[in-house]
């Protein structure tokens, strides 16, 4: 039994390894992009739209709303990153209902890659919004003494992102695997259902945390409110 899909290697040439994680990811990517392409190819702007378009619009609008609620006022700028993060993790996790499927999110390499993506995205959006100096200044807030703690915070939260997702998904797969050998009839199904819930919750948590980090980076310190002038 494999703990990680990384261990299933299809092809190896020195450093380059094509394993199950990459193949599954490509499959999911193909599914997402292909599905999106097929549906958005025939988008309508009228009042009558297709059901697929309606479903897609609900998803996109829902993500937008979530981003806005998390503190980013113009969600369409961030939906490309955050929405893809959520959809990829969610689809990868929901795939556990398929037989012989091993989610790529159960690989620490994948979750580390996603966490690194968030780690990079935070300064990317922050600098894009406020400029390099202003962004770097946030590490000195509220005082310069906080600089090492801020740096540690950045590093640890990235690590926590990666390990949290990996641990939850891997453990779900592990439990199913162990239960299959003990009582192969009912418990794996129940655990799979639980795994679906856990997977969606993890996708939500991961993307909301990413949103919060980005929001913290792009948010300018609010200017002091002027006192109301009494007449």
């Amino acid at each position, binding site marked *: 039994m494999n703990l990680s899909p990384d261990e299933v290697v299809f092809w190896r040439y020195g450093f380059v390894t094509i394993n199950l*994680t*990459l193949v599954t990811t490509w499959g999911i990517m193909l599914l997402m992009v292909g599905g999106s392409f097929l549906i958005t190819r025939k988008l309508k702007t009228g009042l009558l739209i297709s059901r697929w378009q309606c479903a897609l619009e609900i998803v996109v609008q829902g993500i937008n709303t979530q981003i806005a609620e998390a503190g980013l006022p113009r969600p369409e700028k961030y939906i490309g990153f955050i929405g*893809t993060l959520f959809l990829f993790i969610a689809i990868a996790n929901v795939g556990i209902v398929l037989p012989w499927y091993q989610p790529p999110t159960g690989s*620490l390499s994948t979750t580390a890659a996603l966490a*690194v993506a968030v780690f990079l995205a935070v300064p990317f959006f922050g600098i894009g919004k406020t400029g390099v100096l202003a962004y770097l200044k946030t590490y000195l807030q509220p005082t310069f003494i906080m600089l090492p703690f801020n740096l540690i915070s950045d590093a640890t939260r990235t690590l926590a992102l990666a390990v949290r997702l990996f641990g939850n998904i891997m453990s779900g797969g592990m439990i199913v695997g162990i239960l299959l050998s003990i009582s192969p009839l009912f418990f794996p199904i129940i655990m799979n259902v639980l795994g679906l819930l856990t997977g969606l919750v993890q996708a939500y948590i991961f993307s909301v945390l990413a949103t919060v980090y980005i929001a913290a980076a792009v948010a300018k310190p609010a200017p002091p409110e002027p006192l109301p002038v009494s007449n």
Partner: protein
Amino acid sequence: MEINWFTVVAQLLNFLLLVWLMKRFLYQPVLAAIEAREQKIKAQLNDASMQKTEAQAEREQYQQKNADFDQRKQTLLATAHAEAQAERQQLLDEARQDADTLRTKQATAHQQMQEKMHDDLTHQTRQTVLSLTKKALTDLASAGLEAQALAVFIGRIEHLQGTEKQGFIDAFQAGAKRVQVRSAFALSAEQQAELAAALTALIGTEAACTFTTAPELISGITLSANGYQLAWSVPNYLAELESSLAAATPPREPAGESESEPELRHHASN
């Protein structure tokens, strides 16, 4: 539990590629479609609101027009009514006036006709009475009647008074002192002597009398002295009768009353 760094890098690139592809194929088109639809709906709502405003304005305009039209209609109706009333009144007045004129004209014509008929009737009656009287007296005329007439005449001469008597005497005196006696029948000698005696008593002197017969007198005697005449004869009576009849039946007053019409008509139909 170990990290394959190649996989990490590959997954990172995979993810970035996925982000780009999803942006390209999902988010941008869907968001653009939503935006376009929202714009379209907003435009339609604006359009609908504008149309509603326009419709409201048109409706108000139409109502205003309707009210104006109603008012104008009422005014026109009232004017037409008043004019018709005035016209009717005028026509009625004219008709009444015409009727009055006609009635007056008719009444006048009626009255004239009535008067003419009355006159005709009176004249005819008078003529009839006279001719009947004349005929009766002519039939009755005889020597005996002549004697009676003479007696009456003598009585009248004897009782002659005043201006008549004086006039006759004056005429007699002025003339040839002769008296012309005319009678319808020839008088006998006694009658002539009686008359002469009466004349003598009247005048006071002997009068020479000439006796002639005049059948046109029918009955009666005429004395003529120098143009002055004393007569008691039927033609005289008839003339007197005629004049008194004419005096007794003066032209009738105009009779406009409708009650007299049946009587007149009754007269006319007879």
